[in-house]
């Protein structure tokens, strides 16, 4: 059996809050296959975002293992984890996290700028710019390329964030409550966009507390008291054939 794209095994993470220590994750485990749309559900404060950050190597667990294509991310240096975030992962945040000084096109280009040195950029600038423009067309914002983030609606900002997350063609898209800050109509629009991307082959791991949003995924995992609970098949579109019979390892 081939290795999963992403595997988290017995992740523990705690934070100090004043004098108290809060154990957020207490042995959470999961796997995600290539092409899968996986949702991690949980109540507010259940540690969903923390788990997502660990999967994206934005943070390191106190204990446990995160493997990407079978390789332990925690064994990598901080710089190599940065390369992982830049090349293999795209992040979509609840609050968009766009850079206010840059316009839409430039925001989409940032991962590409991070990926290239000053000298390489001279060669890559034109194709990267073309790719960013195409990405904006895909998310329906080609006409807003020159606008600043503060000139966009919430839904538009989130679409820019999705375009930015995809500019380097990452293997894995990690979305942290991408509709959490949007109204129902716009949220549904963003969700449709993510589903469309998944149908095109993009692996997505999303955390949300919204059952309706979660229902569009292939698979839902419930995070409760720091551990992943029972998996459930959802009413989303059919998963890729390779996923149809896979068991979820808690």
């Amino acid at each position, binding site marked *: 059996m081939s290795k999963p794209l992403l595997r988290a095994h017995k992740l523990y993470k705690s934070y100090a809050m004043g004098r108290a220590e809060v154990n957020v994750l207490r042995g959470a485990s999961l796997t995600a296959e290539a092409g899968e749309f996986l949702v991690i559900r949980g109540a507010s404060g259940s540690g969903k975002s923390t788990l997502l*950050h660990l999967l*994206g190597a*934005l*943070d390191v667990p106190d204990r446990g293992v995160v493997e990407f294509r079978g390789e332990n991310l925690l064994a990598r240096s*901080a*710089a190599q984890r*940065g*390369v*992982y*975030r*830049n*090349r293999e992962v795209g*992040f979509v*945040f609840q609050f968009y*996290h*766009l*850079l206010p*000084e*840059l316009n839409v096109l*430039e925001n989409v280009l*940032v*991962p590409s*700028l*991070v*990926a*290239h*040195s*000053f000298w*390489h*950029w001279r060669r890559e600038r034109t194709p990267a710019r073309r790719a960013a423009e195409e990405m904006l067309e895909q998310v329906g914002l080609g006409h807003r390329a020159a606008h600043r983030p503060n000139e966009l609606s919430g839904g538009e900002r989130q679409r820019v964030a999705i375009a*930015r997350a995809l500019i380097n063609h990452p293997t894995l898209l990690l979305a942290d409550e991408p509709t959490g800050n949007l109204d129902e109509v716009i949220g549904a629009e963003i969700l449709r966009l993510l589903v469309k991307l998944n149908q095109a082959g993009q692996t997505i791991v999303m955390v949300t507390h919204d059952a309706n949003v979660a229902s569009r995924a292939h698979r839902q995992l419930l995070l409760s008291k720091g551990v992943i609970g029972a998996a459930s098949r959802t009413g989303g579109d059919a998963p890729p054939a390779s996923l149809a019979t896979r068991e979820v390892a808690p």
Partner: protein
Amino acid sequence: MYKWFLAWRYLHTKLIAFFGIASVMLCVAMVLVVMSVMGGFLDTIRERSRGLHAEIVLDAVSMQGFPYYEEFGERVAKALPDVVRLTTPVIHTYGLFRIPATTFTSAARVLGLRLDEYRQVNDFGDGLNYDYYYPGTTRLEPQAMPVAGFTEDGDLHLPPDLEEANQRWRTAETDPEKIAAYDQNPFEKTPYPYVTPATAGDRVFAVDVGPPGYAEPELPSVIVGFDLLYVRGRDGSFLRHYARGTQVALALFPLSPTGNPTGEPPVRVPMRYVDDSRTGIYEIDKLCVYVEFDLLQHKLAMDPQPLVEGGMSKPRANQLLIGLHEGVELNAARDLIDAEWQAFRAEVEPDLREADARVLDMAEVYTWEDLQRPFIAAVEKERVLVTLLFAVISMVAIVLVGCIFYMIVEKKTRDIGILKALGASGRGVAGLFIAYAGAVGVVGSILGIVIGALFVWNINDFQDYLASLNPQLRVWSPDVYSFDRIPEVVKRADAVWVASLAVLASMVGSLIPAYLAGRVWPIKALRYE
């Protein structure tokens, strides 16, 4: 690439960066002004010092002078024809300068020189006023006072030889503006007899109602240091108010060959003021008067004197100025001439009287740089010290840049988190802020250099303007700084140095904030509000 891109973007979108730019700009401008003025001061000293002497000077060191200057001059010119171009003796002494008409009296350093030769070995001729407009008319031989008068057609003119000389200047002058300025005011005049403080200008002559001519008697001539005669006007201009040819007097104090006063009363010499000299060094122009070599030598009893033991003494001079051919290396020439001097001394030593032997022992061969070295070295030290002090003051800019960048990093914590989430490394984020600080330094330096250079180029106009408002605001005092004008030259190398250091200082100032930015934990940064 994102480092440069974001650094550039932050530079012109973040208002706070302009405070950093302003602080760097002011510090760069301040240090550049100080370096330029002090550097210009030093360069002017060097340049003027070179123009004051000949390349090589055989100096008596002692005031009574040394004999055999003439013989050695001929010998060295013959022995080193490819090195030595010209030699000329000079006498230095001190005396009292007096203008009988106004009873003005002042101490003066009196130089006896052969004008034609003297102006060939240094820049003395360039600072003569009347010799500029009436070339060839400044001489140290006895002469009468030129008086302007009316010709038969009723025009006011100077005596013919002066008018002809002026015509020569007009023909040779290449700057039409100078001729136009002259034509507006052909010559300032002062009514006969001789002096009035009411008239002032560049050229001042006595005027009579008769035809132009000369007022007798003929008297020995003296060229007077400009600042000894005149004072600067409130607007910074220099005004002459003594007519050319005004009678003055020198009182001199002869010394014996051993350096003792002779015991005779001071020698009073009535003379005519024929020109004024501006070397540009205040101490010299305030103190020096220049007379004919043979006259001074005679009045100081430094010419051949009968000896008790019979025969005549050798004439004495204080210096022998030696002009070199163009391209001759200065120190090598000094060594050659010194070797020649030592050989000459050895030859004449057996015939020397004791007093002469002593002064010849003291006489040394110097280059003009050797003579000015103590002064130049002191100014060099002053320049380094002042520049250092201002550079230390400019350290404030580093601290200020540090504070500003600390604030920027605090404000940009969320952006740092975003960049790290998108794959930027801690080192890369630190590099972003260092590049940002570098950009602040570059822009601040460019602006600072422009402002500093504009200030330096117009510094004398600023000062003249301030002085016209209130004389107390004249900050550059020629009494203190030797030169009447503040140096106005900005050296490219100085500008490059100051700018480079400012950029470096800005980057150093940002190191701690950049380090902190690099250490920001992305999760905390993304949650930062």
